[in-house]
């Protein structure tokens, strides 16, 4: 089987590994690096459960091959808590707002919102923008309301909240 050696940074750690060329990034993260926080809900790029940040942009890791990530940098849900294990404020807000139930879609949702936090002006983040941003992540449990509230509380300025 065709294989290539790739160099990849994942959550701040450097890896140099041989991977089959047909292996997608989601499988690479889950089954080769054992970072199983990234979930695969559809493997055809719709559900958003496998969303990670690739060079700080959100990407569906089921739609990109690991070899395409050679020389690039990946962040997954496992990177969010700090070194001491303290949850990211967004994670903490998710719990308080009951933004997760089964938790399967949650890692992808969190990474999508981290991208919003890093790229949007807090003074412009409102409910509509959050719902638009989340529209690429499917959740079957929560009806999205808790996620929207957690994101509003964490990412937006007080005057944009409900």
């Amino acid at each position, binding site marked *: 089987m065709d294989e290539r050696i790739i160099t990849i940074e994942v959550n701040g750690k450097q890896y140099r590994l041989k991977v089959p060329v047909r292996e997608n990034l989601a499988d690479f993260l889950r089954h080769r690096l054992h970072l199983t926080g990234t979930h695969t*809900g559809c493997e*055809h790029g719709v559900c958003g459960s496998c969303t990670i940040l690739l060079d700080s942009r959100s990407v569906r890791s089921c739609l990109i091959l690991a070899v395409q990530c050679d020389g690039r940098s990946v962040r997954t849900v496992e990177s969010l808590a700090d070194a001491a294990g303290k949850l990211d404020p967004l994670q903490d807000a998710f*719990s308080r707002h009951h933004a997760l139930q089964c*938790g399967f879609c*949650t890692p992808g949702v969190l990474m999508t919102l981290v991208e919003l936090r890093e790229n949007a002006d807090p003074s412009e983040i409102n409910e509509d923008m959050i719902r638009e941003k989340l*529209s690429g992540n*499917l959740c*079957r449990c929560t009806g999205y309301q808790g996620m929207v509230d957690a994101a509003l509380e964490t990412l937006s300025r007080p005057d944009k909240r409900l």
Partner: protein
Amino acid sequence: MQHAGKTGHARLEDDRLLRGQGRFVDDLDVPDLLHVVFLRSAYAHARIGKIDKSTAEKIVGVHAVLTLADLKEVLTCERLPAATPASAIHFHVDPCILVKDEACYVGEPIAMVVADTRAIAEDAAALIEIDAEILPAVTEIRAGLSSDSPRTRLDQPDNCVARWTIGYGDCESAFAKAAHKISASFELHKGGAIPMEGRGLLARPDPLDGVLTVWDSTQMPHRVKRVLVTTLGLNENQIRVIAPDVGGGFGPKGPVYAEEVAVSAAALLLQKPLKWIEDRYENFISTNQERDQYWDVEGAFDADGRLLGIRGTLLHDHGACTPSGIQLPQNSTTNLIGPYILPTYKLDVSLCLTNKTPTTSTRGAGRPQGTFVMERLLDRMAAKLGIGRDEIRRRNLIPADALPYVTQVLTRDGLPMTYDSGDYPECQRRALEAAGWHDFLARQKAAREKGRWIGLGLSNYVEGTGRGPFETASLRIGPSGKILVASGAASQGQGTSTMLAHIAAKVLGVRPEVIDVTCGDTHAIAMGLGAYASRQTVTAGNALHAASLEIAQKIKQTAAHLLEVSADDLELRDSFVQVKGVASMKKSFGEIAKTLSGNAGFALPGGMKPGLFAAVDFEPPAITYTNGTHLAEVEVDIRTGHIKITRYVIVHDCGNMINPQIVEGQVLGGVVHGISATLFEWIRHDAQGQPLTVSLADYLLPTAHDVPRIEIHHMESPTPLNPLGVKGAAESGTIGAPAAIVSAIEDALAPLKIEISQLPVTPQRLQKLIRKAQAGGSP
């Protein structure tokens, strides 16, 4: 009732899930793990001849290619003993473990490949050659029930797998004396459950202890174990089934499937750990769905719009097997009655086997359809009589003082369907008020003048919850002092562990976080049922409540002997038992447990019985009925047929709430599932039975942008049927949604006099109705 979690207590499940440290079945890894891929029927109906595995077997990395003939060595039977008893069923059709000679739907498993990786197994599966003779397929239920239809299965006499009549009273006389009658036909579709995690399992035989451990994404691990014991011919102590973190269930992970038996059997046969993870395509073709019901009904009313009777027929698509008896259409027929006085009722029900994926419960489980039919009849009669939609309901709702109200139909347990507590008129009144019902006419008029088509709709419903026969819970404290809870309940995201911890914590005077809860593990507790029918707070919650009371009492009695005080003077606080007001006189739970674990040869103090352990099976005496009123406000774009839900208000009554935040989460998720069933979800097939909606790009689910903010108001009418006074909440949100939304759409389009009779209401369908109405004369 004092609520737990009102201040936003984190669920016990949250921390690890937020960190990406959940343990879903595909996250589990064991040494020497091999991967399974199923080869499935590509035809809706075909006779299967020779299966040539030789090419597939030659692929490097393939360990085995297995058919039913290969698995027979470790199986006691060829079909899954799945049947739920139902006298109306003429012939049970249990699913095949693997197809023997006749494939009856696209997706039915025929063979399995075991390989080093899933990718290799998929490569090999594509190389298996099957001789298939394509047979005519039954794909539409009206045609399927006609006498000249081809048969879904060659060994069955016809396609009408079950037929019965539900009803009571003299319907004919009711119709004869009716002042007003209406008739209506509905084609109601409900899709699949589509949890974000599909099905899957890891089966590992352990030669050291002879136990087959199966980690399974299931709602009912104890049932899976029972089926495996039967099909594999093993003893109860040779199989352990664990439901690890499960990524959503919503019904279809309740029945046991062929794959669960086939993978377990292959693991035994090969003596290797095997994993199968369903992909999304498989989820769309092989996991049970709900699909189509056709209703033709008439309603009889008196001059004031009071119901005299409903009669008609219901045709239901049962799919290719009968894995769950008749429960789905049965729920539809009983839930039609809802919170209303229905003096007479007669419905002829026919279930048609089709060459499609089997149908079983998805969230709401047939009830939304029954509720939809009743609510649409009420709206149409209100329009005919020129009275308000709220008013016709007020005239028909069961008054609060009539509860408990015994209806004249039986539930599955054979008991009369009895509404135990609630105040339906008050529930509707509060919902109308919260949604601004009485001001809406003015808002609607103003909007119409600006060319905007807005509407407000309502629905009332009940949901039977807390179904028996029992659920188990145990509580144990050992010398470590740790409080260990186990239950046959199983969680797929409902926060079951948190709910149980809150119940025990309150009784034992501790924080919920110190309680260790194990759900969904057949080794943790011998019996159990699991998640179905919005039941676990009612059944497992009350079981644990009783066990906790027993232990609390025993701690106090033991401490009374040790501290030489009266048990009445003791209180439980933070894992200690202490004399009230004298914090220095106390014993830890661990010390009490140590005392009761005994010293060799010495008597236990005060003649106490050994150990701090209690196990309770709670058997609910009857089903307890949650109820609610939904108000939906919509705006319709009459050029495109696009429907936007602009506001959604619910008044919900599930009795006492253990944790309101979790209840609201259940209701919210349920409503969005209902919105989705109304506007988006549609499983489609071509005339040959080929599924056309097999990805999340073809089959639409609602996104954060498609759903409104949902307002939930609570009433709490405790049920007298259990000590906690609780009812279920998991499906209720789904039940009221389709009726409320369609009521709103018809209200928005009232000048066009549009009647919606099909679900889902897609923009294309609605646009067609609008154009037809416009062609017949503009408003």
